[in-house]
């Protein structure tokens, strides 16, 4: 069989091979404590939180997050403007070399917009995280109810 479009074939082959060295770098990033906040019935949106550790020697950026449970995933942060909380989409969330970035309530978070089903406590939500080097990470985030009981050990009542 002949290849009439040899340059094209080469280009495709190169594209397929390209992510291989990138995959090696992927292990520099580890994600811990990922969870999705359970929201009241009928709420169309929720947020995912996690800590991203970067053991590598170069900075990484989280550029996209998606989940099959939501029609859209966006990266957001909050700006506390003299007491007014302004939520804004951000193009990327940076993780410094040998550093970590926390996605947490009131700060950076992955917005999951237009939920396709209501999430129950104990459910697991798959998330696909894409980084600026083209690498991706598939993680599972547990659905957690916002804490409504005081944590023990603060002199508060235990339940």
């Amino acid at each position: 069989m002949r290849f009439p479009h040899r340059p094209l074939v080469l280009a495709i082959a190169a594209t397929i091979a390209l992510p291989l060295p990138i995959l090696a770098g992927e292990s520099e990033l580890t994600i811990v404590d990922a969870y999705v906040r359970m929201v009241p019935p009928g709420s169309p949106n929720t947020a995912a939180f996690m800590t991203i550790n970067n053991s590598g020697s170069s900075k990484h950026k989280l550029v996209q997050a998606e989940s099959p449970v939501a029609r859209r995933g966006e990266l957001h942060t909050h700006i506390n403007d003299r007491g007014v909380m302004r939520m804004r989409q951000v193009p990327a969330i940076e993780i410094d070399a040998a550093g970590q970035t926390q996605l947490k309530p009131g700060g950076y978070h992955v917005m999951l917009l237009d939920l396709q089903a209501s999430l129950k406590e104990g459910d697991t939500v798959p998330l696909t995280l894409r980084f600026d080097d083209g690498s991706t990470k598939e993680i599972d985030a547990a659905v957690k109810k916002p804490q409504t009981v005081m944590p023990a050990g603060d002199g508060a009542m235990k339940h």
Partner: protein
Amino acid sequence: MKNRALLIGLLVVLSAMLILVIGFWEPQGPPTASSVGQQGRLATAAPPAGGDFTLQGPRGPVALADYRGRVVLIYFGYTYCPDVCPTSLALIAQALSGLQASERQRVQALFISVDPQRDSAARLQEYAPFFHPALVGLSGTPREIAGVAAQYGASYQLQAPNAQGQYTVDHSSATYLIDPQGKLALTLPHAASPEQLIAAIRRHLPPIDGR
């Protein structure tokens, strides 16, 4: 050598300041009517007074006056709020859960929607108890909500909708504490901890009847 450079630097800065002052200083002319009005308004901008209001609750009108004799916590937000409101309401819920049962009976928490177009009283009834059964959600007409927000110094601003017609609302995220006499006693900042809330509540709790 170092001292000399420092001295020169200082001289440069001071001369620059002098030039700025000479160049831009304009002695105030006679005030115009409009500037007087504006300055007068700003000068008299008192801290928010709080005060009574009536809004729509899950079973009809709810008035702040209904809760005389109790400490009332008020939080302004909206149910489509993706992060800030759930975070704040969870903190308030934790505070309520951390109170003794006898204290909790003398405390009421209210969630007032700044997005009344989407947040009906019925929707709020689904939303608020998710955080704590004692949390009551209130809605009203946009005008009523604006009035109550102004009374308490809460601010909010609807943002431009996205392609799907969804919008977010920027809003202040304070928790207002109203004492048993109905007076705005304290404004707690965004992300006040349950411990801070409990301490503030206990400072204002009325004594238990019959003791």
